């Protein structure tokens, strides 16, 4: 199992029956493939669908049913369509239970940066700022360190923020970490074969180790 699969499989276990869930583009979208059979969730697409189903077959493709990444999708039983204003009423009004998003950086205050790299890449925030502020629970899906090995879980984010004090849980290839308001980062689970020291060495922020520390099981 590669890193990304391990991350999204673990996140899938965070979801509860009946949850309304918004998955970000990229790795978070893969979470949908690993939802346990006994859990029924409704996936929201910010462009106006509640109840997104699997990708559409060639013959069923229509521009009237796409997800926020522009993919042709289907809908599940009980799905609904709505316009952007209504969609962000769902998102900003606290009606989304969980959002899963990628991140460039996160810090011990639960601040997250995931929408731009100054001077390099400014794709825009899309619905990311709305989602992290409005969703009841924000889970980040991210590799623990950058491609060159630098920590992405920091004392303080350096990149322009997406929002402040919003992240609840960080799931990486090395660990599952909760952000505890006014306390910092609580290390709850570590990947098989790793030590707490390994995880701390790959993390700039100080980790508080849970007395109930577990090994990640996916």
């Amino acid at each position, binding site marked *: 199992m590669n890193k990304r699969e391990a991350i999204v499989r673990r996140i899938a276990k965070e979801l509860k029956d009946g949850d309304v869930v918004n998955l970000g583009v990229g790795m978070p979208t893969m979470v949908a493939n690993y939802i346990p059979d006994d859990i029924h969730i409704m996936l929201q697409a910010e462009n*106006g669908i509640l109840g997104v189903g699997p990708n559409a077959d060639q013959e069923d493709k*229509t*521009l*009237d049913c796409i997800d926020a990444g522009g993919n042709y999708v289907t809908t599940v039983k009980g799905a609904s369509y709505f316009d*952007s*204003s209504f*969609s962000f009423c769902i998102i900003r009004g606290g009606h989304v239970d969980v959002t899963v998003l990628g991140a460039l950086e996160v810090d011990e205050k639960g601040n997250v940066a995931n929408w731009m790299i100054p001077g390099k890449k*400014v794709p825009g925030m899309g619905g990311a700022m*709305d989602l992290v502020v409005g969703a009841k629970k924000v889970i980040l899906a991210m590799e623990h360190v950058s491609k060159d090995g630098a920590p992405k879980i920091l004392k303080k984010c350096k990149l322009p923020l997406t929002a402040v004090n919003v992240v609840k849980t960080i799931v990486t290839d090395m660990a599952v970490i909760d952000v505890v308001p006014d306390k910092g980062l609580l290390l709850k689970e570590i990947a098989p074969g790793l030590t707490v020291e390994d995880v701390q060495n790959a993390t700039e922020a100080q980790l508080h180790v849970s007395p109930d520390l577990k090994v990640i099981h996916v």
Partner: protein
Amino acid sequence: MNKLISAGEAVKKVKDGDAIMIGGFLAGGHPENLVNALLNTSTASDLAIISNDTGTTELSIYQLIKSGRVKRIFASYIGSNPETGRLLMTGEAKVQLFPQGTLAEKIRAGGAGLGGVLTPVGLGTVVEEGKRKIEIGEKNYLLEMPLKANVAFIKAQKADETGNLIINGSSRNFNVVMATAADYVVAEVDEYVKAGEIDPNDVTVPGIFIDNIVKVGQ
């Protein structure tokens, strides 16, 4: 009662310096024929474009933005149109990015006659720069001002003679709010029928908002 005109006639109403709302989310619900006519048969310049994402490279909006006729852009996500990103980086156009829900609500406020929108989305980020913060109770909000336009081009599946629209599936997106917030609103449709042939129960956008209809293929 007949609101039907050609795309060429519709874009003649666009003047130099106009702000134009363009509906759609990526290629979904995008009024391609109207934008294509604006690109090829109008010479209006110094334009402002208000669009969720400024489309994709396959659409005429990409060429329009590349043409140098667009000087201001309001959007939430521009990763699908590298030309918009280039204009932002070089400063050739003034590109303002908003959280997607904020963009939708600004337009809704414009259409609904509201004085603005208060939202926590964007607090603590670059989005708050230059905006008033208002404290209500113990919470802070950003004041986001209403957004209106001279012209809105939107896309629907079907219109009747009174301008009532049916918009299918996820193509509702920004088309619904944009219909309310411009002085001159044109809907591009696949089907045009007599008044009475659309059940009032099925109307997505009431005809009162629609000035003209352009039928695709005519």
